[in-house]
């Protein structure tokens, strides 16, 4: 296992280099460099200023020199300076990743907590009303766009919420967007207050993942319960609950763990819509804003971060596979 890990980590080096080149070239190929955008619509700027600014940002140098400089700085923990936010990219990135986690972690947990039991029950009672209900729900989840579902949730739970007329249900409403109520004391009260803000966007973000995890759990479980070894287990006289928990579930969850691990980076990269609808200051929205504003240093940093996530969780998926399935050994 150790030698496998070492090999995999070494293999990542050329991969990361390749990804960084692609990211750099794509953003460099985008029309208009940062200075062009900066000057857009500003009549007071002279041609001399343009030359001076381009020299200041290093944009007058050839691509490969600019790439090497960017990589060299990045290796030293310097991802550049955000032109629009006027802070170093790295500190901006960390702050927004933290914000994003506030949204992603609950969304991920909600998705798993619903999907696994529903998927299993759905498979065990194939073609029952529950199974059809779950199937309908998964197609709903997979096909409903997050922005529409988000707006509906805002309308229902933040604007209309007719049930709040009942005193018992008066609490059942959530803020339409944002990250914290204004004027909340720092520390613990901030976090408690934030929970109200997390509920709606986390539900919206979890929907897609919940749907696809449910689907995978169901099909994986369906495949496993038809296996000969499940019949063998039943022939031993053990209870149906033990057959499912001990013999079926352990096999069914192996492919699921891989799929879940591989989908975690998608929780980050797939969040911009949800974050925009709910005004959540997360990393997805930052990426969209940065691209639109031509803040290329920030965009590069975020894409690099997302690429890193994909690579890391791929490795995690492979390793967890080996840990769960005794037939897989990397040596």
């Amino acid at each position, binding site marked *: 296992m150790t030698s496998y890990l070492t090999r995999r980590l070494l293999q990542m080096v050329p991969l990361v280099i390749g990804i960084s080149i692609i990211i750099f070239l794509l953003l460099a190929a985008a029309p208009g460099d940062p200075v062009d955008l900066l000057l857009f619509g500003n009549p007071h700027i002279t041609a001399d200023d343009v030359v001076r600014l381009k020299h200041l940002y290093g944009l007058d140098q050839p691509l490969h020199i600019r790439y090497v400089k960017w990589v060299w700085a990045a290796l030293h923990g310097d991802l550049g300076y955000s032109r629009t936010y006027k802070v170093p990219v790295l500190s901006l990135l960390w702050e927004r990743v933290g914000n994003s986690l506030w949204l992603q972690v609950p969304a991920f947990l909600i998705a798993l907590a619903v999907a696994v039991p529903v998927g299993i029950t759905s498979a065990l009672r194939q073609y029952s009303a529950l199974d059809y209900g779950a199937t309908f729900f998964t197609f709903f989840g997979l096909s409903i766009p997050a922005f529409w579902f988000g707006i509906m949730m805002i309308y229902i739970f933040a604007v209309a919420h007719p049930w709040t007329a009942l005193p018992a249900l008066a609490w059942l409403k959530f803020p339409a967007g944002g990250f914290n109520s204004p004027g909340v004391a720092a520390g613990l009260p901030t976090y408690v207050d934030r929970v109200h803000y997390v509920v709606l966007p986390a539900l919206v973000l979890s929907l897609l993942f919940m749907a696809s995890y449910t689907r995978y759990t169901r099909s994986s479980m369906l495949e496993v319960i038809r296996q000969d070894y499940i019949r063998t287990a*039943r*022939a031993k*006289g053990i209870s149906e609950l033990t057959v499912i928990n001990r013999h079926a579930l*352990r096999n069914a969850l192996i492919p699921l763990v891989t799929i879940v691990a591989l989908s975690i980076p998608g929780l980050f990269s797939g969040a911009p819509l949800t974050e925009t609808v709910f005004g959540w200051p997360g990393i997805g929205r930052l990426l969209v804003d940065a691209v639109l504003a031509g803040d290329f240093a920030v965009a590069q940093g975020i894409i690099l971060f997302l690429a890193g996530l994909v690579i890391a969780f791929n490795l995690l998926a492979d390793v967890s596979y080996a840990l769960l399935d005794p037939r897989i050994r990397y040596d």
Partner: protein
Amino acid sequence: MAEVLLSVRNLKTYFYTDEGVVKAVDGLSYELRKGETLGIVGESGSGKSVHALSIMRLIPQPPGKIVEGQILFNGTDLLKLSEEEMRRIRGNRIAMIFQEPMTSLNPVLTIGEQIAEAIMLHQGLGKRDAWDRAAEMLEKVQIPLARQRVRDYPHQFSGGMRQRVMIAMALSCNPSILIADEPTTALDVTIQAQILELITELQRELNMAMILITHNLGVVAETCDDVVVMYAGRPVERATVDATFTDPKHPYTWGLLHSVPKLYERKERLIPIEGQPPSLIDLPPGCSFAPRCPFAMEICVKADPPEYPVGANHAARCFLHSEYATEDEKRAAAAAGLAAAAYGPR
């Protein structure tokens, strides 16, 4: 004669599919005595395996259902037991080994866990004792280094070794009946004989009764006391093993005997049974074998033959042994029976 351990009476197991009702087992009866081996023979789809799963009450339901009959084990009707009572019999009093050793073991659990599981459940042993017993069982089925190999996973064993593990698992609680559903079919020929010998040896040692399901007549001749020949879900002939091979009475049994290749007597060619087994959904009104039977008479396509006694402990579902057959037809049948017996593995 030893006492009757298991008595199957008029068992009917049907599957309700979209295409219609599949009558997989349609009126099977037999008796199994203590320590005895009963062979159930027939081609694929004749209901052999479904009958075995019916005894274990492991028929997937829906679509399957045991619609009629009794399965008396020591006088208790298994079909009337609650699921919980049945679980105490499964793997404990009646155990089963399956055809496919490669897929019949759980890939993510060690061999020891899988054997010890049944022991802990039925014998009430603690984990340590159950693992000890599991290792003992592996030694009994002649797996080398059994004490270490309990910690191995199924994929670390070959097909033959896995079938040994299955046998160890099935016998771990000293069952009084072992149902072996084509236990050697999926194995290499060289391994088949070893496994069969192991099973019969352990059967003698533990004084177990066995139901051996197979389509291999050679295996039947070697190991069984009694034989039930099945066709299209029905028992067409029931006899002792001697009578089955020396004095077979049903044309289907003759066909099976003619289809056995022999090593030392060079036959010109095998004589296969022409045609295909019928669909179990729309069985013809008469005898289900009539369309393939070279001796079919007029009555055969009209009525379903009942079981006719044709000797001591010997019965055949065939009109050739009834008043419907003429003396000529009976003589021709007797000659065909002798010819088939001469071809058979004995």
